[in-house]
């Protein structure tokens, strides 16, 4: 059927083809994201001989590093290896403390028993008290740096407990999962200092379902956030 403009009434114009492709593409991505979120809640299939998993450990100033060290001390070192420690560039103490910890393990058992460790710094998205406007720029820089580090490390496991530096890393790990680049198990342990309200990092990971497992240390948080796992106090 032709009209006066010599166009077919039912013809599909190039722009609507593009539109359909975009909608289709977005739908596929959404389905993929939902699938990833669903699979993240499933445990890794058990087998008799589990290979060790490379582990990224995010450290932070304040109580974060102390709490993380407390957790690392009860983990099987040769299951979580090689270990990559990341701390903010402005944080001088955390990587030092991690090095002391690793050295103490090496003194107890050799490298074979304990595994190896590397220590890295990352640009911070936002310093405490920084204006939210300039934070946009610094966050972009931090994201780029995080991407660079994640491409290098591609960890199988990510352990974090709060500092804002973990958000770009976890976000990129999540994107890697979606794109099939690397499957990382993302574990977040909320700080013992959080009793009634989740930190911003935890809230983001919880709401966006980016963490495989999110642990809280006080019962008040468990009643507010049902998908979180209550593990009592770690310290």
């Amino acid at each position, binding site marked *: 059927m032709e009209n006066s403009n010599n166009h077919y009434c039912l013809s599909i114009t190039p722009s609507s083809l593009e539109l359909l492709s975009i909608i289709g593409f977005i739908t596929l991505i959404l389905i993929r994201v939902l699938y990833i979120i669903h699979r993240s809640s499933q445990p890794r299939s058990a087998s008799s001989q589990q290979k060790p998993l490379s582990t990224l450990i995010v450290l932070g100033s304040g109580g974060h590093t*102390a709490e993380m060290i407390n957790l690392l001390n009860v983990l099987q070192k040769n299951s979580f290896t090689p270990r990559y420690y990341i701390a903010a560039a402005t944080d001088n103490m955390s990587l030092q403390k991690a090095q002391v910890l690793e050295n103490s393990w090496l003194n107890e058992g050799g490298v074979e028993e304990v595994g190896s460790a590397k220590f890295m710094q990352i640009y911070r998205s936002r310093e405490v008290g920084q204006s939210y406007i300039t934070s946009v720029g610094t966050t972009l820089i931090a994201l780029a740096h995080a991407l660079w580090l994640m491409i290098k490390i591609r960890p199988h496991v990510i352990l974090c407990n709060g500092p804002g530096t973990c958000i770009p890393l976890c976000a990129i790990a999540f994107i890697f999962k979606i794109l099939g680049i690397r499957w990382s198990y993302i574990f977040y342990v909320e700080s013992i200092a959080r009793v009634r309200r989740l930190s911003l990092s935890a809230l983001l990971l919880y709401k966006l379902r980016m963490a495989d*497992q999110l642990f809280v240390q006080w019962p008040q948080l468990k009643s507010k956030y049902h998908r979180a796992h209550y593990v009592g106090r770690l310290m």
Partner: protein
Amino acid sequence: MAEADEDLKSRRTVFVTVGTTCFDSLVRAVDTQEVKEELFKKGYTHLLIQMGRGSYIPAKSTGENGSLEVDCFTFSSSITDYLRSASLVISHAGSGSIFETLRLQKPLIVVVNEDLMDNHQSELAEELAERKHLFCARPQTLYQTVADMDLGSLIPYQPGDAAPVAKLLNSFLGFPDD
């Protein structure tokens, strides 16, 4: 030597710590005559203040004329030894200071810094105070807290355990548990 031992036995130190923060209002509150007199009345002999990044410097004192001996410093790589030799600790609400002190089973007054934005620290101090593991105060209420405190009412804090998390991680990742 015997004299030094005598000294140590009768020495009861109040250790004040603000960690790596700036918490002038706490240092000022501790440095007031009324708080120092109240501490002296309660039998404390020394007041040692770790001031951190604060700009208010308390006046040192040798403690003659029946008063506290006052000393101060800014930072130390580890405050564990100071905590160990203290009879009472007055600390900012940082979780590190709090749990290190509770682990050493020292009586603790936590002072919350109200100048901090988004003061989540107060949640922890209040929860532990509710569970009677420490006393919680603000700089303005420090004197009252010191005057009213009954150390016998404090319940020792049982240290936590990270093993449950390790168990959960191992079972999630299919690692053997041992």
